[in-house]
């Protein structure tokens, strides 16, 4: 049960993939975390987390075609697996449950 919960960075990555949709690869995932999640990211850290998530079966990946603007290097597209979606929901449930009833967090956004 405990292993199903994600770290904050893993959760952000999975949510970013879900938000970007079908064409989620490193750049749009990092951009989504930076713009929506308001967090500076290191692309290498994103890939390290994606590797870990793929090993745990939470994301799957497929290679795209090489393109000249990337120096002839291919993109790697990521999708959230059903197991990954379950982990996101599980983490959300736990966080919301912890959130509820905390007096210090009521009535403000700060």
């Amino acid at each position, binding site marked *: 049960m405990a292993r199903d919960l994600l770290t904050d960075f893993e959760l952000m990555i999975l949510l970013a993939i879900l938000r970007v949709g079908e064409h989620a*690869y*490193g*750049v749009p995932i*990092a951009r989504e975390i930076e713009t929506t999640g308001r967090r500076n990211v*290191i*692309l*290498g*850290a994103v*890939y*390290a987390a994606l*590797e870990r998530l793929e090993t745990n079966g939470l994301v799957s990946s497929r*290679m795209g075609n*090489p*393109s000249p*603007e*990337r*120096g002839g*290097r*291919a*993109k*790697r597209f990521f999708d959230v697996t059903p197991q990954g979606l379950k982990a996101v929901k599980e983490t959300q449930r736990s966080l919301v449950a912890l959130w509820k009833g905390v007096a210090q967090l009521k009535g403000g956004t700060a």
Partner: protein
Amino acid sequence: MMAPTPPRLACALLDRLALDNEPLAGDLLEEFQRRQSKLWLWRQLVAALVMQALYAPHPPVSLNLTPVDPVVAEWLMAKRLYKKKTVNLTGSGVEGIGGLTLVILGFMMTTVIPAIWWFVVGGIGAGLALGIVRVKMRKGLHSQIRRFADW
């Protein structure tokens, strides 16, 4: 407008990174062309190379110190069928303590308790004296045996 090109050294490092992680190298180049910031590229590139070195899976490499395949040797040792042999490559007589460890130990001793060196010097002196006494005794014993044999 022409797309900016990264510095030559950064290009070489991107090529090196691409050997292990081609999509990441491509992503860095793509994002560099949008941001046009060399500082951003260097920061990302150095972090990526460090992470690659730390987290990339390294397959075990055999040193060929054992006569059997390392995987088989591990299995045999787990089953207690093969006795593990350690090879002392440090040049130190004490197993598990290499030359560098002795240097670090000496440095720490000097920094923390310099007076302990008197014990070390005393120990060496006592060892030498004991050695001389033993050699003398052995010589005396040999001459006694020879005299006894002659007699």
